[in-house]
C-alpha cells in the first residue's frame, strides 16, 4: 500500500512540473518539440531513479552537515555518465538536447527528491519515488512538447499534421511554453476540484 503510494504520488498528485512547479527551466527550454521532450524525460528519469536509489542506500553513512555536497557529487556523476552514454550511442539525440544534458545537475527535482525523500526513506521506497516522479515529469514534459509542436509547427514527433505556414510560431517560442503550462495547470486544478 505504502509502496504503491510512493510510486503514484509523483505522477499526478505531486506532479513535479504541474503541482510542485519545480524544474521548470528545462521544461521551458526543451519542450518545443515532442521528441526533445521525450529525450529529456528519459535522461532525467535515469538520473533521478539512480540518484534516489544510491542516496537511500548510503543515507546512514552520510553526515548531516555535508549531505548536500555529497548529493551533488552523486547526481553529477550520474549526469556525466548519461552524457557520455548519449554521446556514444545516440549522437542525434545528444545534438538536439545539447547544453540541457549537463544542466540536469541543477534540475531542482532531483536534488529536491534526494533531500525530501531519498535521505529519509528505504531504498525500495526511494527508487519507486524516483520512478514515479520521473513518470510525472515525463508526462508533463511530453504533453507540453506535443501541444507546442502541434500548434507551433503543425507536427507531432516530426510527423506533419498540417501546413506549418498555418501554425502559430509563438507556441514554439518561450511564451508558448508559459501559455501551455498555465493551461495544463488550470486543467489539472479543475480536475482535482471535481474529484473532491
Amino acid at each position, binding site marked *: 500500500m505504502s509502496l504503491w503510494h510512493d510510486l503514484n504520488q509523483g505522477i499526478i498528485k505531486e506532479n513535479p512540473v504541474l503541482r510542485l512547479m519545480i524544474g521548470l527551466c528545462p521544461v521551458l527550454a526543451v519542450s518545443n518539440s515532442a521528441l526533445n521532450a521525450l529525450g529529456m524525460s528519459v535522461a532525467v528519469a535515469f538520473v533521478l531513479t539512480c540518484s534516489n536509489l544510491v542516496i537511500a542506500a548510503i543515507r546512514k553513512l552520510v553526515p548531516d552537515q555535508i549531505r548536500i555536497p*555529497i548529493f551533488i557529487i552523486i547526481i*553529477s556523476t550520474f549526469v*556525466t*555518465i548519461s552524457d*557520455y552514454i548519449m554521446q556514444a550511442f545516440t549522437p542525434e539525440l545528444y545534438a538536439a538536447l545539447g547544453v540541457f544534458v549537463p544542466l540536469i545537475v541543477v534540475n531542482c527535482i532531483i536534488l529536491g527528491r534526494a533531500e525530501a525523500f531519498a535521505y529519509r526513506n528505504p531504498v525500495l521506497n526511494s527508487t519507486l519515488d524516483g520512478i514515479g516522479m520521473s513518470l510525472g515529469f515525463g508526462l508533463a514534459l511530453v504533453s507540453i512538447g506535443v501541444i507546442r509542436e502541434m500548434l507551433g509547427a503543425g507536427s507531432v514527433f516530426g510527423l506533419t499534421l498540417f501546413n506549418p505556414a498555418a501554425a502559430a510560431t509563438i507556441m514554439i*517560442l518561450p511564451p508558448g511554453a508559459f501559455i501551455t503550462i498555465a493551461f495544463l495547470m488550470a486543467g489539472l486544478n479543475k480536475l482535482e476540484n471535481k474529484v473532491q
Partner: protein
Amino acid sequence: MIKTVKLGLILMVFCVISAGLLAYVYIITQPRIVRNSSAAYDLSVKEVLPVASSGEAVRVAPRGYGGPVVLLVGVSNEKKVVGIKVLSQKETPGLGAKVVERGFLDQFIGKGANDPLEPKKDIDAITGATITSRAVCEGVRQAIRGKK
C-alpha cells in the same frame, strides 16, 4: 577540529569513488564518441563535396542571432558553391532555425565570387530572420574567399 577533518575525509571518499566510476565510463565510451564525431564530419564533407578532388570543403562560423552558425561549404576549383550544410546553429526555433532547410540553402548552389550574395538581391531571406540570413550569406562569401 577532528570533526572537520573527519567530514573532509568522508567527502573525499565520495569524490574518489565518483571519479573512479567516471574514469571507467569515459574509457569505455570515448572511442565511440570520437568515431561518431569524425564519421559525422566525413559524411558532411561528402554531402557538400561529392567529388573530393574537384574542390574543397570550407568550414565557416559567421555570427547569427543566437550564436555562431557553423556551416560547411563545398567550393569547387572554379570557386563556385557546389554544396552547403549547417553543422550547428542556435537560432530561434521556428524562425532562424529554418536555416537548416534545403529550400533556403539550395539558393546558394552555383553562386561564385562575382555574385552579390546578399538578401533581397540574389538570395530570398528567411521570413522573420534577417540576421540569420545575412549571416549565412556572409559565411558563404568567406568560404569562397577562403578557398585556395
